[in-house]
């Protein structure tokens, strides 16, 4: 992206880049600052946030219980829109999850050292988002208690699953993604947990717990050596994985027949959208985290600006994908696609996406995803915390509606006009969406409370780099790998 991002220098790092961190930071200071939320009693603000999050979660849980008792009918799904907000939420959360792995794995491979400030929270966000996402397909199936049938397990009935179904691909992709993300996150956290463990002086129980989860990490050179190689390998496989996951999710639609879904552009389009929304969510969260936990020294304005730039770029990619869809609908001459995208010119059916029942979603999507991010062309806005906070929220809103429009409006205008129908979510749909946010923030707040929100060891590493290391040999994880 810029000259700053070239691989680790073979020479002593010249200070030609603007420093990411305050120059007077020390390693101990890093420890103190980052571990502070763990050792202090939670603030009132934290409790307030936590109460809200748990409240939202309770609402969602209540609705889910009600749904399990009464039936799917309480939410807005109907014929022909058999998929509604649940799948929208699923795609939305999976998309959110993408930024985390992207930041931790892909930026790691590209040796973007600015990622160290945000990768921990971004990865946590990934895990929690995948948890939220994974919940929805389960709630979405008509017989939730039998959802385990989607896993191929040996059973008395001799039945297996259909490996041709994109939903099975999803089952594998999402569960693999959740597993690998969790391992990646956890592995990255082991040294930090050890740091916490060693920093605890008084509380023996806490010390024990951190002792368990830090797996007796000592931090020897040997450990670091394998650790770094393993971490790099995990990053290397997480990169195709993250691309494949959202590609698979997109294939739920792309391999289906519905006009508006059946499109080869979906995988890259969905991945770009996922990065877009994921980064927006990271910005939203980090803006809060760095203020609440006073981590401005570690998650600096430069970090924020870089992320905003990525948002801008992915916004352009998403807009390009929209345009391509429109173009392909016209170019292929497929009447069903054409109707889906621009209807019948010079009739009351012109632009059904913007005049029909999902019109609101269409407008929100276009404005929030294509227009609003253009504000980031201005450096001032890129570096303005309130502006980026609002824009990131709008982008998330827009991306939710993008999925909503793709899923709902495609289904409601399919092949036979006799089967057209207008989907309308019910209050329970929104309640479950709220509940998923509640779950997400509950987990995230707990995470902030019990785990270092910034990767301490990595910060220390890059801090030393910034201060200037002695001319050591160009040893590094990747060099080890490729040697």
């Amino acid at each position: 992206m810029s000259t700053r991002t070239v691989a680790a220098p073979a020479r002593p790092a010249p200070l030609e880049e603007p420093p990411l961190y305050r120059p007077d930071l020390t390693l101990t200071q890093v420890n103190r600052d980052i571990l502070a939320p763990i050792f202090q009693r939670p603030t009132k603000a934290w409790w307030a946030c936590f109460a809200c999050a748990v409240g939202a979660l309770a609402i969602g849980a209540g609705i889910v219980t009600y749904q399990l008792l009464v039936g799917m009918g309480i939410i807005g799904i109907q014929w022909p829109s058999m998929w509604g907000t649940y799948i929208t939420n699923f795609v939305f959360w999976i998309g959110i999850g993408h930024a985390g792995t992207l930041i931790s794995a892909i930026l790691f491979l590209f040796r973007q050292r600015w990622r160290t400030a945000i990768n921990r929270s971004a990865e946590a966000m990934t895990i929690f988002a995948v948890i939220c996402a994974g919940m929805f397909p389960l709630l979405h199936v008509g017989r939730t208690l039998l959802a385990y049938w989607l896993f191929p397990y040996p059973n008395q009935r001799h039945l297996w699953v259909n490996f041709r179904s994109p939903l099975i691909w999803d089952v594998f992709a999402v569960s693999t993604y959740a597993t690998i993300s969790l391992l990646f996150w956890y592995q990255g956290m082991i040294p930090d947990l050890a740091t916490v463990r060693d920093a605890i002086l008084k509380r023996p129980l806490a010390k024990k717990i951190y002792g368990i989860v830090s797996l007796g990490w000592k931090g020897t050179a040997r450990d670091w050596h394998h650790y770094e190689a393993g971490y790099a390998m995990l990053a290397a496989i997480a990169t195709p994985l993250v691309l494949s996951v959202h590609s698979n999710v997109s294939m739920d639609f792309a391999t289906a027949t519905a006009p508006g879904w059946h499109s080869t552009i979906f995988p890259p389009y969905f991945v770009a959208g996922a990065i877009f929304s994921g980064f927006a969510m990271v910005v939203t969260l980090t803006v809060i985290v760095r203020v609440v936990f006073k981590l401005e020294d570690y998650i600096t304005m430069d970090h924020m600006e870089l992320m905003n730039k990525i948002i801008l770029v992915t916004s352009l990619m998403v807009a390009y994908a929209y345009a391509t869809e429109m173009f392909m609908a016209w170019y292929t001459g497929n009447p069903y696609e054409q109707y889906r995208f621009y209807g019948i010119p010079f009739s009351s059916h012109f632009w059904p996406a913007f005049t029909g029942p999902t019109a609101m979603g269409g407008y929100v999507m276009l404005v929030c995803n294509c227009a609003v991010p253009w504000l980031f062309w201005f450096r001032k806005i890129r570096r303005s915390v309130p502006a980026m906070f609002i824009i990131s929220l709008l982008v998330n809103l827009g991306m939710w509606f993008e999925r909503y429009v793709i899923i709902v409006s495609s289904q409601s205008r399919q092949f036979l006009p006799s089967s057209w129908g207008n989907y309308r979510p019910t209050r329970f749909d929104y309640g479950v969406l709220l509940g998923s946010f509640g779950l997400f923030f509950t987990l995230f707040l707990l995470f902030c409370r019990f785990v270092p929100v910034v990767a301490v060891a990595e910060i220390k590493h890059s801090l030393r780099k910034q201060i200037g290391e002695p001319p050591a040999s160009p040893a590094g994880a990747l060099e080890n790998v490729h040697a």
Partner: protein
Amino acid sequence: MNLRIVREQWRILLIVVILLVLAGWKFLSAFTNIGYSPEQPIPFSHRLHAGINHIPCQYCHAGVERASQSPIPGLNVCMGCHSVVDNQRPVIQEIAKAYNSNQPFHWVRVYHLPEFVKFRHSPHIDAGIACQTCHGPVESMDQIVETHQFAMGECIDCHRQQNFLPPAAERIHRDYQLSTFHGHPVNAPTDCNTCHS
């Protein structure tokens, strides 16, 4: 600390866990209904009728070769013999009383099919499957005991073993009363709709 045991003796612990899982599995499988043998309103003995006296099953369960369900004989079937045979015995008099007062017995059902399964007796009778194949040695039971837990795997296994034709030829031969094909019994279907409609 206990966890030290975990750390040091984990192999043993692993074995214990595996054994526990196996035991649990065994425990759960104890919840099948095999062995279920409820008392019936009349202590009717299949051993006496079908075993000792060699009365054929279809003498009482008549029509099973045409019906999907095997008919439970009405009291008139009992009375057909017992109006003469052993008619002085109190239990037979009870039957006669019930018969005359038109009060049917409530037999306790022993064999249950899983829900959604449309099992038909008649094709199985046609194919020459003995009652005992599924219902166990009824002729040796005084009180009927459930010997099989009807589950899809069992049906499928049996149907597959009977399925000697390549799938392509399956349906052609099913339309004809072809009991053998190259010396093998022919083709029990394994389509879903055979049992689930």
